[in-house]
C-alpha cells in the first residue's frame, strides 16, 4: 500500500514536473566563435544558433523539408520561387516578423563577409510582394533552392540596423560587432547568457509558434546550458559523474564504457559527412615530396596504388571501433543523387598497390607529406597515422603533419598541400553541393571549386556539374550518375568512410538523433 502511494506520489510529482524548470546541461568539444548567424558556416556555430533562429523552411526529424517561417512555397516561374509567410510571429525582442526581414536576411547573407553565400548563390534579388509573401528571383532556374534556403537563418531588419549589423561579422578582420555576442531570433530558445569558451545559456521562448506542432508538443526543456569541454577524458568524466546531461561528441573509445554505465545511453546513426583524402593533381611538381620534375599524383596508377594500400576494414574495426560506414564514393545515401552501384571501393590489395607503383616508375615508392587535422573529425589524426603505416608497407614514406583545425584549414586553403584529409558534410542534402565545391574547376564562378584544394579539373565533370546547376528531372539525375562514375574511375579523392555519430546522454534525457549532427532541443524531453 505504501509502495503504491509512493508510486502515485511520484507519478503526480512527474506530472507536475511539466510546468517546472527543466534544464539540460549540454557539452561538446568546441565553442562557437560568433553568434552572428551569417558569419561562420560551421557546425559548432549552427548547433547553438539554430536553437535561437528560425529558417523559412525547417527540417523534420528525417531531414526532410518542413514548414518553418514560411508555411508554403512554390516555384511559380522557372526563375521565381514564392514563399507564403507565417502570420503573428515575433522576434525575441518583440519586433513583428514580415517579408521585409526575409529580403534583408537574404541580402545580408550575400555580403562579401558572409560565409553562407553558397546557399544564396543563384539568387538575383528578392521582393516583398505582400507583407507576408516574398518572391525570390534566381538568375537560373534553381530546383534545389528550398534545400538551400533551409539553412538560412532569418534576422530582424530593424534590430540589425539599430545595432549596426547589416552585414555579417568579418571574423577574419578581427572585428567585434553587436552580433558577435547578441542574438534576436524567432526560434524556440532565447539567448540569455553568452560567455565565450565558458558558458552559453538559452531559455525557452514560450511564444514560439512551433510549440503546438506535434513533434514539439512533448518537449519540456525550459533551459539549455552549453559548456564546451575540449578534453575528451574530462568531457566523459563530466557525463559519467552527472555534471552534464548530454554530450554531442563522445569519443569513440569511450562508447563501450558509456553503454555499460548505469543511467547513460548512447544513440547513434549515420552522419551526412564523408571522410576522404584529396590530392594535389595540379602542380607539375609536388610541394612536399622527394620526387623532382614530375607529380606522381597526376598518375592514375599512383592514386590507385595509394587507394588500394589502405586496409579500410581495419580502420573501420579498430580506429573507428565499428562507428563508420565504409564507402567508395563521397557522399552518403541520405543525399539526393546517391547511387548504390557507384558506391564500390577498389579492393584492399597491397601486392597490387606495389605493382602499380612499380609500373608507374616508383618501384621504391616515394616520400610525401600528409596534412591532417587533429581536432576536426572523429579520430582524424588516428586515421591518418594508420594510413601512413599502411602506405609504409607498400614503400610510400609519408610524413604525417597533424595540426589543429585553424592552421590546417589556413594551410590547405592556400593550396599549400600535397595530400590532405578532409571530411565533407552536405547540409543541402543534394549532390550538387559536393560536386560543385569539391570537384568543379576553380574558375572564379560563385561556389565553383571553393574547396577543391587539389585543383582537380576535368572538362566533362565541369559540364555535368553545370547540368546539375541548371536543369532538373531526368537529365540532372543522369548527369549526377555519370559524374559519380567518373569520380569512381578517375580517383580525384581516396574515399574512406561516412562518419557515424554517436550521442551520449543521461537515461532520463531524450532527443531525436539527427544525421546532420545538430541537436534540436525543441524535440527533446527531460524526465
Amino acid at each position, binding site marked *: 500500500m505504501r509502495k503504491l502511494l509512493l508510486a502515485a506520489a511520484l507519478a503526480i510529482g512527474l506530472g507536475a514536473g511539466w510546468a517546472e524548470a527543466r534544464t539540460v546541461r549540454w557539452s561538446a568539444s568546441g565553442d562557437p566563435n560568433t553568434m552572428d548567424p551569417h558569419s561562420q558556416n560551421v557546425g559548432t556555430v549552427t548547433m547553438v544558433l539554430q536553437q535561437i533562429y528560425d529558417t523559412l523552411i525547417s527540417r523534420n526529424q528525417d531531414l526532410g523539408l518542413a514548414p518553418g517561417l514560411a508555411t508554403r512555397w512554390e516555384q511559380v516561374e522557372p526563375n521565381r520561387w514564392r514563399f507564403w509567410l507565417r502570420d503573428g510571429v515575433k522576434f525575441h525582442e518583440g519586433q513583428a516578423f514580415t517579408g521585409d526581414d526575409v529580403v534583408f536576411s537574404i541580402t545580408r547573407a550575400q555580403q562579401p563577409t558572409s560565409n553562407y553565400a553558397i546557399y544564396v548563390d543563384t539568387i538575383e534579388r528578392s521582393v516583398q510582394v505582400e507583407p507576408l509573401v516574398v518572391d525570390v528571383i534566381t538568375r537560373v532556374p534553381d530546383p534545389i533552392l528550398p534545400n538551400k534556403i533551409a539553412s538560412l537563418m532569418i534576422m530582424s531588419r530593424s534590430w540589425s540596423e539599430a545595432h549596426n549589423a547589416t552585414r555579417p561579422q568579418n571574423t577574419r578582420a578581427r572585428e567585434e560587432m553587436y552580433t558577435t555576442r547578441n542574438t534576436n531570433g524567432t526560434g524556440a530558445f532565447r539567448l540569455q547568457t553568452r560567455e565565450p569558451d565558458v558558458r552559453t545559456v538559452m531559455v525557452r521562448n514560450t511564444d514560439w509558434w512551433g510549440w503546438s506542432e506535434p513533434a514539439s508538443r512533448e518537449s519540456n526543456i525550459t533551459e539549455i546550458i552549453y559548456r564546451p569541454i575540449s578534453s575528451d*577524458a574530462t568531457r566523459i568524466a563530466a557525463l559519467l559523474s552527472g555534471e552534464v546531461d548530454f554530450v554531442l561528441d563522445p569519443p569513440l*573509445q569511450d562508447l563501450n*564504457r558509456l553503454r555499460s554505465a548505469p543511467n547513460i545511453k548512447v544513440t547513434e546513426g549515420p552522419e551526412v559527412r564523408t571522410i576522404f583524402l584529396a590530392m594535389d593533381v595540379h602542380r607539375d611538381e609536388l610541394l612536399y615530396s622527394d620526387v623532382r620534375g614530375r607529380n606522381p599524383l597526376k598518375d592514375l596508377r599512383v592514386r590507385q596504388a595509394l587507394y588500394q594500400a589502405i586496409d579500410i576494414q*581495419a580502420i573501420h574495426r579498430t580506429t573507428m571501433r565499428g562507428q563508420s560506414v565504409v564507402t567508395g564514393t563521397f557522399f552518403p545515401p541520405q543525399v539526393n543523387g546517391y547511387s548504390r552501384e557507384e558506391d564500390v571501393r577498389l579492393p584492399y590489395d597491397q601486392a597490387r598497390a606495389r605493382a602499380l607503383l612499380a609500373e608507374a616508375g616508383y618501384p621504391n615508392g616515394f616520400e610525401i607529406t600528409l596534412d591532417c587535422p587533429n581536432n576536426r573529425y572523429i579520430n582524424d589524426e588516428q586515421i591518418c*597515422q594508420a594510413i601512413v*603505416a599502411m602506405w609504409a608497407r607498400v614503400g610510400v614514406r609519408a*610524413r*604525417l603533419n*597533424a595540426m589543429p583545425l585553424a592552421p590546417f584549414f589556413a594551410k590547405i586553403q592556400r593550396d599549400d598541400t600535397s595530400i590532405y584529409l578532409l571530411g565533407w558534410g552536405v547540409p543541402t542534402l543534394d549532390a550538387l553541393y559536393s560536386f560543385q565545391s569539391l570537384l568543379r574547376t576553380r574558375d572564379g564562378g560563385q561556389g565553383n571549386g571553393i574547396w577543391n584544394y587539389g585543383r582537380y579539373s576535368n572538362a566533362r565533370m565541369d559540364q555535368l556539374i553545370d547540368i546539375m546547376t541548371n536543369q532538373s528531372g531526368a537529365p540532372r539525375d543522369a548527369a549526377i550518375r555519370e559524374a559519380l562514375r567518373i569520380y569512381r574511375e578517375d580517383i580525384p579523392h581516396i574515399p574512406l568512410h561516412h562518419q557515424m555519430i554517436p550521442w551520449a546522454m543521461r537515461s532520463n534525457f531524450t532527443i531525436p538523433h539527427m544525421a546532420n549532427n545538430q541537436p534540436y532541443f525543441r524535440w527533446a524531453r527531460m524526465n
Partner: protein
Amino acid sequence: MAAAVNRFFGSDLWWSFTRSPVTVASAVVALVCILGAVLAPWIAPHNPFDLASLNLSDAFKPPAWDEEGAAEYFLGTDDQGRDVLSAIMYGARVSLLVGLSATIFATVLGVSLGLTAGYAGGHVDSVLMRICDIQLTFPSILVALLVDGVVRAVLPREVHDQIALFVVIFAIGISEWPKFARTVRGSTLVERNKEYVQAARVIGVPSVRIMFSHVLPNVVGPVLVVATLNLGLAILSEATLSFLGVGVPPTQPSLGTLIRIGNDFLFSGEWWITIFPGVALIAMVLSVNLLGDWLRDALNPKLR
C-alpha cells in the same frame, strides 16, 4: 685509476650509500631506467618507429598477463598497434636525452656565469645576480613555454619540427641556469678570499685559470647536488610541455607525449596505454630525486 676506484669505495660517500637501502634501491631503479632507455634500439622487443611493422589489427592488446594479451606485447599495445613497452623505452630515451642535455646546458651556463660573477664581483656581479633574481621568480615552465612559443611562431612549421628537440632543450635549460649560478657564486665568494687563491693571484696566475683550476673543484659538490635534483625537474618540465602539446615533436614521442595520447583512453578501459608510461616517468624522476636528496645530505656534514 685503481687507486681512485679504491678511494671511492673507501670513502664516506660510498659508506653512506651502502647504509641507505632506499638510496640503493633508487640507484638500481635509475640504472634500469637509464639502461633501458640508452639500449632501447638493441634490446626493445619492437621498433615503434618502423611504421611498416605496425599492424592495426594488433591494436589495443592488453598486457601479456591479461587473458586477451599476447606474450609478444608484454605491456600491451596502443591504438596503432605499437608495443607499449618498446614505446616506453624509446620514449624514456627522448625524455632522458632532453633532461640530461637541458641540465648540462644549464650547468655549463650557470657555472660559468656564477664563477664570473663571484670572481669578478662589482658591477658584473650585480648585473648577473639581478638577472638571476628576475629569472628565478619566473617559473621555469613559463619561461620554457614562452621560448617555445616564440620559436614556434617565428619559424615555419617544417623547420620547427626538425629543431623542436633542441628548442625544448634550450627552453628548459635556459630556465634553470640561475640555480647553478647562485650556488657557484656563493661558493666562489668564499673561496676567492682564501689564502691559496690570494697567493695564486699574487704570483700572477691568470684569473681564468684560477677560476677553473682552483675555485671550480671546490664547488663541484654543491653543483652535483643541484644538477641531480634539477635532472628530475627537467624531465618533468619536458613531460609537462609535451603533455600540453608544445614539447618534442610527435615523431619523437617522449614519455609525456605517450601519457598525453594515452590519456584519451584512460576511461575506456585501455588504461595500460597511459598508466605504464606514467609509472615509468614517476619511477625515473623519483629515483633521480631520491639520489639527489641523498647526495645533498651526504655532502652536507652539518646534517650527519
